[in-house]
């Protein structure tokens, strides 16, 4: 017993003059260790409780990544059309389609060179126009054949449409004026027709016409080239027989010279003719703010000179705005789902913590008797919920970041993980831990120590 007096004598007094708040740096380690220990004692229960948060956080991040990816692709496609551009396309009028069964009927529709002149003189803010004619033909090289859209256009097509040459070059103004027999092919065509040798300088032919290949275009998704689905459908019904998977570009003048304005389409025994001057015109507006207004002017202008609705006006900018709006809606829906799943996770945590508080009533009584203040008890339980939610959040973030990776790898879908999505998801999960931990923690702290000690 001398030992006791020695022990107590030498150990006087605590190095900390007064007890610190349980969250003070000196005590934080102990507080967290206590929480971890208590959670570790109920490993399975802690794990199951965490799952709600894990799945909540993980699904939010994964869904956001997929949404961002899809949205990015759509926006990228639209941007490739050019956000300053207004695209006007010829569309075969609906009533004309029905009469194509008549053997020698020539359908006349679409944009004309006059339309272009009118737009040019009326609206000075429109800088360049890219007129284009599209014909669907087979392109040959020796015995190899590719089903192609032959796109007759102008040298500045690349610049306006944001679609550039991968190697070689695009045709120039001289070639346009001279109606030169040159062409620029896309990568797919190059791969099919020239599997082993370089396409530049070689010759391909369409019917009896021979063209020298001078360049190969960068890949551009078919979707972006075609615009929205609506116009795609309309074009499919048109005389040019829809769009092919591949495109070759030739000077507009050459196209006019070689193919004329009359397109012949053979349909199981009958022939149909249609006369289209221009299939597509791209108008570029200098300032983006003017795009919508300019579209209205062009619409009014075309309406005056076209009896039938045989054209359509596509404004990539409005498509872009629509895509942005869609993304906003998507984000709101996602936010709702996230909120609900985290709410459910939070309720799960609260449920378990309430059970835990009841189960540990006696421990609370003991701790109170041995000097624990109410706030010590509050912090003890709160730390547990925050650890549950925090660790659950971390696991969720890890899963949420890896899932899009697998989706990209296996489903070949583009996914984008923005920095803020894991950050927000994690902070919200930690917040959920605090919010849903408060009630059980205060319930524990407000127990009467005498009652708590008597609890069996």
């Amino acid at each position, binding site marked *: 017993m001398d030992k*006791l007096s020695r022990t107590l004598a030498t150990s006087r007094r*605590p190095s900390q003059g007064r*007890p610190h708040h349980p969250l003070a740096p000196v005590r934080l380690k102990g507080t967290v260790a206590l929480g971890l220990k208590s959670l570790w004692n109920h490993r399975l229960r802690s794990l199951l409780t965490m799952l709600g948060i894990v799945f909540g956080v993980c699904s939010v991040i994964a869904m956001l990544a997929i949404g961002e990816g899809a949205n990015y692709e759509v926006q990228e496609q639209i941007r490739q059309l050019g956000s300053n551009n207004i695209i006007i396309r010829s569309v075969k009028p609906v009533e004309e389609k029905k009469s194509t069964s008549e053997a020698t009927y020539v359908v006349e529709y679409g944009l004309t060179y006059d339309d272009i002149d009118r737009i040019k003189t009326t609206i000075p803010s429109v800088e360049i126009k890219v007129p284009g004619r599209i014909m669907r033909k087979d392109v040959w090289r020796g015995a190899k054949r590719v089903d192609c859209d032959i796109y007759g256009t102008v040298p500045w097509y690349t610049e306006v449409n944001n679609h550039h040459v991968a190697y070689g070059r695009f045709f120039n103004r001289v070639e346009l004026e001279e109606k030169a027999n040159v062409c620029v092919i896309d990568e797919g065509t190059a791969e099919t027709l020239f599997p082993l040798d370089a396409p530049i300088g070689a010759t391909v032919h369409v019917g009896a016409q021979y063209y020298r290949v001078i360049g190969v275009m960068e890949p551009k998704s078919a979707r972006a080239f075609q615009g929205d689905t609506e116009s795609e459908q309309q074009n499919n019904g048109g005389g040019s027989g829809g769009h092919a998977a591949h495109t070759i570009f030739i000077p507009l003048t050459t196209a006019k010279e070689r193919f004329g304005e009359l397109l012949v389409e053979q349909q199981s025994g009958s022939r149909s003719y249609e006369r289209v001057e221009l299939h597509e015109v791209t108008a570029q507006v200098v300032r983006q703010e003017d795009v919508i207004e300019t579209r209205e002017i062009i619409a009014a202008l075309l309406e005056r000179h076209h009896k039938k609705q045989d054209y359509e006006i596509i404004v990539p900018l409005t498509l872009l705005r629509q895509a942005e709006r869609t993304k906003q809606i998507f984000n709101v829906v996602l936010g709702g789902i996230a909120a609900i799943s985290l709410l459910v996770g939070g309720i799960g945590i609260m449920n378990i913590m309430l059970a835990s508080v009841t189960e540990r009533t006696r421990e609370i009584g003991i*701790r*109170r008797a*041995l000097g624990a*203040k109410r706030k010590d008890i509050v912090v003890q339980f709160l730390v547990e919920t925050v650890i549950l939610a925090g660790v659950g959040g971390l696991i969720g973030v890890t899963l949420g970041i890896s899932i899009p990776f697998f989706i990209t790898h296996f489903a070949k879908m583009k996914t984008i993980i923005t920095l803020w999505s894991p950050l927000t998801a994690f902070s919200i999960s930690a917040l959920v831990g605090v919010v849903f931990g408060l009630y059980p923690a205060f319930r524990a702290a407000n127990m009467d120590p005498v009652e708590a*000690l008597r609890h069996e």
Partner: protein
Amino acid sequence: MENVHIAKTEDLTKTYMMGEVNVQALRGVSIEFQQGDYVAIMGPSGCGKSTLLNLLGCLDRPTSGRYYLGEDDVSRLDDDALSTIRGTRIGFIFQSYNLIQQLTVLENIEVPLYYQGYRDAESRQLAEDLAGVVGLEQRLGHRPYELSGGQQQRVAIARALANDPLIILADEPTGNLDSASGAEIMDLFAELHELGKTLIVVTHEDEIGKRARRLIRLHDGQVEQDTRN
């Protein structure tokens, strides 16, 4: 040293509401405790022993009257202040030991130190020393359920000593023990008394009452007898 009042109650009363009826558990209890006292509080069940012990241990507040512990009147302190008083001036020993089952012997002894802001190393060292004092140096890493009742009660005693309290309150400390273990615990109490610790033991066993230096009998919420032997 004998005559220093370490704790003093003045006309302490406690009234509980039991449904519609007021139950007066204590009806004016005035006792003085001296430094180094070894007091046994006895009485039939329902006489207010437990109520008095809860008040002396600052677990509860009196309905009226005053309670001085050390220099201070603690009968009107708020919950936080009472917690601090419990943590620094009072050591509890319970009939059912009240150890925390998930914690080891060492960690149980450290609990009161933890709430007084001891550094880890200090508190560990002190807890080890205290475990040695009660003869459990070989059992530091054991959990309470791996120990016998007597050993568990010795852990509780070590824990009660950790903050070097002014008074040690024991509530039927041998109630759950066989006679041999109970005797060991009482021997330990005697040694603590010799070291000058102030002990207040609530019991209904005459055997224990006889070993104390002072015997207080409660009846119907009042002091019936207060004798020194």
